[in-house]
């Protein structure tokens, strides 16, 4: 069970049960994210200011604990950050969940560090990164949907 406890850390279980920013936003960019393989499906709502700084972000939809908790933790981490800052954070997060942790500064990650266990479960990397891919598309100003396939 130790790998499982690593994967399903308390932060993840908590955010899965009580996702933060789990609502629709008015006057927001709206991008859908799919994982067709397992049926994860979220809609991300994004408000940015004139300098591409995130004013507010929220999401709705359904999926596994990893994808939902990831969307929830992400939404409460990126508010007030610029597009560039989010890009760097995603890169660090991506390295964390794929196990490429050399040079990763975990203090920079905060609660995102709870996803470290994902690296032991390669099939779940897509779950952990779905919301991030969707956010990146929204930040680029594209309105199309994102799929992990």
């Amino acid at each position, binding site marked *: *069970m130790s*790998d*499982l406890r690593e*994967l*399903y850390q308390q932060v993840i*279980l908590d955010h899965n*049960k009580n996702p933060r920013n789990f609502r629709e936003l008015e006057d927001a960019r709206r991008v859908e994210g799919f994982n067709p*393989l*397992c*049926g*994860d*499906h979220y809609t991300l709502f994004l408000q940015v200011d004139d300098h591409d700084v995130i004013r507010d972000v929220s999401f709705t939809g*359904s*999926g*596994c*604990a*990893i994808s*939902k908790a990831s969307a929830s933790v992400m939404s409460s981490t990126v508010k007030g950050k610029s597009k560039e800052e989010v890009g760097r954070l995603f890169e660090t997060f991506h390295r964390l969940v794929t196990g490429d942790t050399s040079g990763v500064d975990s203090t920079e990650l905060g609660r995102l560090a709870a996803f470290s266990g994902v690296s032991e*479960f390669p*099939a*779940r990397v897509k*779950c952990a990164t779905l919301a991030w891919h969707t956010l990146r598309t929204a930040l680029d100003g594209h309105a199309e949907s994102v799929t992990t396939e």
Partner: protein
Amino acid sequence: MSPAHSTLPSLPAAKYDVQAVRADFPILSTTAHGHPLVYLDNAATTQKPKAVIDRIVRYYSSENSNVHRGVHYLSEAATSAYEDVRSVVMRFINARSEKEIIFTRGTTEGINLVVQTWGRKNIGAGDEVLISAIEHHSNIVPWQMLCDEKGARLSVIPVNDSGELSMDDYARMLNPRVKVVAVGHASNALGTINPVRQITTLAHANGSLVLIDGAQGVPHMTVDVQAIDCDFYAFSGHKVYGPTGVGVLYGRQSLLESMPPWQGGGDMILSVSFEKTTYNALPYKFEAGTPNIEGVVGLGAALQYVSALGLDNISAYEHDLLLYATRRLQEIDGLRIIGTAREKAAVISFVLEGVHPHDIGTILDQEGIAVRTGHHCAQPLMMRFNVPATGRASFGIYNTRDEAARLVDALRKVVEVFR
């Protein structure tokens, strides 16, 4: 079905020795994440007995050559190994003639063959194709493509809350525009066994042809295409303990004769000039190119293996396992079984309150238990039951009550993690 053609000893009907069966499957003695493997993903693909593995090794060690070509010793050995399987298949599904047995890449290719040849010739604007709400994508999408091309209509027979076809609706939906009815023998996602004989009788009375997607029929029960009276029956080798990449399309001979060829190439011709090609006779007309000889030979060994066990014995054994597993799974609080048809193959789809199937799959995997999680290539069906996905335990000839009990124990751990 008589196992008389088999080279393996047949077991007495009353005695099904599952431990002897298990010993025939090398992969079942391996471990996954430190636990003895519990393989419950048989609806996706089955494991292979040593008889199949050895047969393929023997083919490559002493018979390998191209078929229907040379006059040399090996070519004759390969051709006879390949063609012998055609009669094994013929007897296995009780076809009338070897000419009715077309080797394909699998069920999907068999359905596409019918759609692209019979379908393109016989379906026109305003015609209707009837499928059911529990079809696999492979029995939806090829028909949808055809209907789009021809301006025909794809209609869907609904299912009730147990996952059974509504036969009243089906009877009402049959009308003179319906040219073909295409339904699964058994549902890969729910396990429902369709009343294929009754479906065919009604369709024929309406002047419609019937195609049966038998991918989940052949592994679990005796299949007699003459008793069903269907016009086409497609199945895959890998779901019945044979290799991947090989399957069978059965077609009524008169229909196959009337159909244009599908793929052009070697083996499907009698003579070729740049002005005109004369096509080969059945079944070769539909087997262009060098076939999957190794796959066909392995499929023959697989069908002989299950025939020796006896398909009726397999059905009875798996049914007992289904009842046991269903009863044990229902003991888990918050677990709901999707698909409770009276006639079911040993497939159990389930959801667990508050836990997404993907998380269930990961946790079971850590316990050495392989199940499928997701939409099972049946997205419209998931929508019908209002679930994004399910977990699915699908049983085969080597699974045991003990393994079903391990599944239940592991699901209790899932509940514990997410409590």
